[in-house]
């Protein structure tokens, strides 16, 4: 006997809630993404491959992916440290800082983009300082890195912080009683408990960074082969009315972000199994 598609329920509103959900989901999400995939299918894999297979596009995909990975890595380390400071220490202004962590979610990306550029460009406050010291920040990959760190900043902190709150002090006390140093306890007892949440935050930060556009284009310099990110190339292809080229890059980026999410999900399952809690 197979399970019914939907169980009978005394609660009314099935028709209207299911109707609205499925209609809007189809119109707003499934139809447009389906159109992208259909466009790709019509063009055919060979055509898509010829569109993607150019040095300029590989350079942009490699740049986007590499810098997103580095930025997410930075956010992983910094995010765990920040979550620890916010969850465990008491200092004046803690509440304010806790609220300010979400600023990158609340600030429009274009605003973040021009603000970071104003600071880090050679004529900006930090940029001028760097220039005096003999190096540059904006209009080279390091500028893109800064923008990507900014947009991905809250993810790790927000996933790890509730887990730190849940960690039972008894476990740390037991470790200390058994003679472990504080460093040893954190390294071998606390951090493994935070790992799945931290990896989830890392994945979210990475996925966000790979697709980020608004905050990056102002500070990037946008030189082909050097500082041109993949989403910008989609915009350029569209401006040239090269829809197949744009579709090819769009599908490549979709594939990359799904692959990333799958890999990270697998890591999470593995790490949960290894340390034996959910």
């Amino acid at each position, binding site marked *: 006997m197979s*399970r019914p*598609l*939907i*169980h009978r329920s005394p609660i*009314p*509103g099935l028709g209207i*809630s299911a*109707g609205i*959900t499925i209609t*809007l*989901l189809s119109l*707003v*999400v499934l139809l*447009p*993404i389906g*159109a*992208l995939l259909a*466009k790709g299918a019509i063009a055919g894999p060979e055509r898509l491959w010829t569109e993607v297979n150019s040095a300029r596009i590989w350079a942009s995909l490699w740049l986007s992916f590499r810098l997103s990975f580095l930025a997410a890595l930075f956010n992983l380390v*910094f995010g765990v440290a*920040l979550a*620890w*400071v916010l969850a465990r*220490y008491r*200092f004046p202004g803690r509440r304010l*800082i*806790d*609220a*300010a*962590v*979400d*600023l990158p979610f*609340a*600030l*429009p*990306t*274009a*605003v973040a983009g021009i*603000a*970071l550029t*104003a*600071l880090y460009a050679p004529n900006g406050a*930090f940029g001028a300082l760097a220039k005096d010291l003999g190096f540059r920040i904006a209009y080279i990959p390091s500028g893109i890195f800064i923008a990507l*760190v900014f947009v991905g*900043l809250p993810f790790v902190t927000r996933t790890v912080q*509730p887990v730190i709150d849940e960690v039972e002090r008894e476990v*740390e*006390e037991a470790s*200390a009683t058994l003679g472990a140093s504080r460093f040893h*306890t954190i390294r071998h007892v606390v951090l493994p408990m935070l790992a799945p949440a931290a990896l989830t935050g890392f994945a979210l930060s990475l996925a966000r960074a790979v*697709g*980020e*556009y*608004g905050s990056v284009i102002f500070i990037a310099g946008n030189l082909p082969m050097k500082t041109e990110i993949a*989403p910008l190339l*989609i*915009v350029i292809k*569209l401006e040239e009315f090269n*829809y197949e080229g744009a579709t090819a890059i*769009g599908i490549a*980026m979709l594939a990359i972000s799904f692959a990333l999410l799958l890999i990270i999900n697998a890591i999470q399952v593995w790490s949960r199994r290894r340390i034996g809690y959910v």
Partner: protein
Amino acid sequence: MSDAPATWRPATEETPLVRRLLIGSVLGILALLLLAPLVAVFVEALRKGWWEAVTSLANPEGLAAIRLTLTVAAIAVPLNAVFGIAAAWFITKYDFRGKALLITLIDLPFSVSPVVVGLCVVLTFGANTWVGGMMVDAGYPIVFALPGIVLASMIVTFPFVARELIPVMVEQGRAEEEAALTLGASGWRTFLTVTLPNIRWALLYGVLLCNARAMGEFGAVAVVSGKIRGQTATMPITIEMLYNEYLSVAAFTLAAVLAFLGFLTLGLKTFLEIRHADALAATRRH
């Protein structure tokens, strides 16, 4: 002997030196990455004084951008709120197969680049598609016009309300609604007097996040807007255009307006997290 020495600390705390170093470096990085850009927005906006800043916005194009952004949010946010309520009701009040898949599909826009979202809208409703072409012929283009901008904004903000409501409604269960129905209340009355009061703060929270993103969305809108001055340029798009024309004061003043709205969002959000923590999902309480 019973008095603890001055240097005593519990074995579950770090040494004061480590603690100070950690707090100091974390706050230092936050100041460089978060505080400094924020200060820069206002400093650049007011570089030539208040008067210059205010007058830079008081022109037809600046006002049209503000009006357009408000219009887009006024259409996209309520639609997404209705969707969020319907989806949360459907998902939490019934048992059906494929629920996990449905939740994944609702969350999908979060893992897609905004530029790809814009591309999808162009490929679905652009002038060279079947539907888009018909609409252009009828005089109502979708892409490079208001409907396309609304659709792009709706896609990127699609999951916000639903994903705030679902965990709250799962926690609250179905017993209260079932009791109301047993006592003879109609479906609508049950929803309005039993469910809605329970989810109102979570709903407000979701709407707040949805609205902030809808008003600030850049990547997806940049692809579908066509950037026609005074017509299809939203506030973020206008910021880009002004900035590229070296109209720095105007660009940063508009940015300051959006940053102020962002502050407001953060403030309200924090207020809800502190004041109504029990009415938000568990992951929001800290």
